[in-house]
């Protein structure tokens, strides 16, 4: 751009420019980036650093109480904990995996249906987006009522077709998948939205060419649409994956502290919350959070690597 080049090359100061303006001009790259850097520093780098520090101490009870540096003991303790930590990791993976799989597959199917214009399209889109605007805690409470084992609507409906009542959220084995179902119900619309945006921006020509070549609908989807759409799919998986792995509100609203009496839905996030807010074990909680952070960063790194290769 002409203006842009001018900004970089034109002499910015004249002998009459006051001193502060000269200084500001010389350091303008810092000046402009300053607020953003301060923001990142105060709200991201400092808390992260503090958490790393806490994870290396035996802080408990109060973060202001005396604490001593104990090196990597917390990490060793957490990694050896097969009672709460590893099951929580497993549940996090299960929850995220199931939710993500269904959200992407369903999202893709619905997005393809909505791709071509049809009558009443606007209304259908609004209706599909409704779950997205509800707050997760309200969603949790709503499903909790619907799925109540004794008075809930879901079991009454099953009763009409002769199926015995199911425990849903109160079942030790069914609770996690029930919460994953809620997540799918709420967040599939977001995936639809992203994929639909990707679909509408695709060029028509490859499709027409495939059509002329006699490709079937499935072949056109598999070998034309999907590869072209892949970058968008990766974005959807990344966004939704990061969100799903960190899910807290739905789990807490439906099963409470510790993810239920048998820790049925205790994912890493719920576990770390319990460690810090119920047990006041700040050192261990920080170690869990740092490990959790590494898991997220690690899986995102793998995903983006894959997307670059693709």
């Amino acid at each position, binding site marked *: 751009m002409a203006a842009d080049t001018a900004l970089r090359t034109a002499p910015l100061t004249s002998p009459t420019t006051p001193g502060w303006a000269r200084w500001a001009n010389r350091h303008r790259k810092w000046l402009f980036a300053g607020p953003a850097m301060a923001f990142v520093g105060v709200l991201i780098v400092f808390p992260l650093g503090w958490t790393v520090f806490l994870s290396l101490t035996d802080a408990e009870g*109060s973060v202001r109480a005396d604490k001593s540096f104990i090196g990597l003991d917390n990490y060793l303790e957490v990694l050896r904990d097969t009672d709460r930590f590893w099951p929580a990791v497993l549940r996090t993976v299960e929850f995220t995996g199931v939710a993500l799989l269904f959200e992407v597959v369903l999202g893709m199917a619905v997005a393809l249906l909505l791709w071509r214009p049809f009558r009443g399209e606007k209304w259908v889109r609004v209706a599909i987006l409704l779950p997205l605007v509800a707050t997760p805690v309200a969603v949790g409470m709503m499903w909790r009522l619907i799925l109540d*084992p004794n008075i809930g609507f879901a079991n009454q409906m099953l009763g009409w077709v002769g199926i015995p*009542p199911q425990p849903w959220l109160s079942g030790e084995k069914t609770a996690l998948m029930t919460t994953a179902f809620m997540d799918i119900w709420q967040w599939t619309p977001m995936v639809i939205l992203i994929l639909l945006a990707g679909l509408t921006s695709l060029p028509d020509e490859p499709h027409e060419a495939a059509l002329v070549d006699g490709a079937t609908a499935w072949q056109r989807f598999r070998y034309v649409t999907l590869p072209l759409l892949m970058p968008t799919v990766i974005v959807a998986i990344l966004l939704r994956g990061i969100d799903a792995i960190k899910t807290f509100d739905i789990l807490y609203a439906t099963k409470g502290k510790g993810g239920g009496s048998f820790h049925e839905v205790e994912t890493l996030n719920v576990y770390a919350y319990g460690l810090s807010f119920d047990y006041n074990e700040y050192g261990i909680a920080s170690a869990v959070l740092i490990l959790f952070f590494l898991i997220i960063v690690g899986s995102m790194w793998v995903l983006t690597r894959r997307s670059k290769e693709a």
Partner: protein
Amino acid sequence: MRPHSLIAVALAATTACLGLSACGGSGSEGGEGSGSNVVKVTLANHVWTENIKKALPEFEKQSGLKVEITQLGEDQLSDQYNVKLNAGSADIDVMMYRPLQEGKLFAKNKYLADISDKVTANSDWNWSDFQAGPVKSTTYDDKVVGVPLITEQEVLYYRKDLLKKAGIAAPPATLDELKSAAAKIAADNPGIAGFVARTGKSAAVTQFSSFLYSFGGDFIDDSGKATVNTDAAKQAYAFYGGLIKDYGPKNVSTDMSWPEAMAIFTQGKAAFYTEADSLYANATDPAKSKVSDTVGFAPFPAGPAGSKAYNVPSWALGINSASKNQANAWKFIEWATSQDQTLANQKAGVPGARQSVWANPEGTATYPKDLADAIAVSTKTGVGHDRPLVVKVPEAREIVGQPIVDAITGKDAAASADQAQQAFQTLLDDENK
């Protein structure tokens, strides 16, 4: 726009931002200065809080202070304290807390100000009027750190109509009678449970404690050893869990605290319910309860060791040690725990911690007669704690509560009690190090 005017605009914007945030900071500082006439009070959702809010204008008028109330549910309240007190915030002057749940932790962390001098300063207010048990629980290292507010005893809630229908003349006096009555009613009335109570691992511990004591057990013995796998404890776990498993609601959830269990009872879906008396208004208030006219109360049924309900101070008021407004904070506490306010609250259904209000016939006049009688029994034979008295109460509750949910879901509760014993002993050893 010319380059340096661009920079000037950016600078102006930045300084404006800085100025604003500085203003914001000093603004909130200003309210906390010493002797501020605004007292910041954090209270739990409770009948007591509703009553005190109604009486507040009277206090504000006579003292010239302004009271700002923040009101939260129990769990949110704990989280709030965890965040604010950890940060040493002076945002809270007066705090309503649970002496048995958080008292030890807060006192150990020095969150609670020492008010030993304040409580004895005014003889009209009369510190010696407070019951000894509750006072013990708000005293830490011989220093008074809180004023007991509300006491709680476990009683048996029951449905008079269902008992009559089953031909049972009087509410069960023993746990065995309770079991057979629950079995009979559950068998005769499809869709109605014989018995309901809290089922959540942590939530159930307090209401289970009376069963434990009545079977002759406790969480910890006098020498500080864990005792949750004694024969008495194993029997108690099996009994409580068995009642809910065999005669409780179908497909019972293992996450119920009192709101869920109370809802089942007040919807008319259960015949017996063991719960804290301080929640009785939920069952007798026609606006909240479908069984308000048929609910009855009885003392906790006797087990092999007699009827031993807990009798505990459930809430207290303390002063945040980081508060810069402690003198005025005390004025609020002094008023809120005065004889008049305690009596007024007791009349509205909140059992107080002052001896005088119980001695005063007016103090129990508004209670259902059978409830007042039941409370009188529990206050005589009651046990002064309803959970393990340790620093890490939440963790301890989860440990000793595990056998309860295992018993409810039909697992091997005795083996679970052995496991709990081991984990609980480790926690105790850890704390006594």
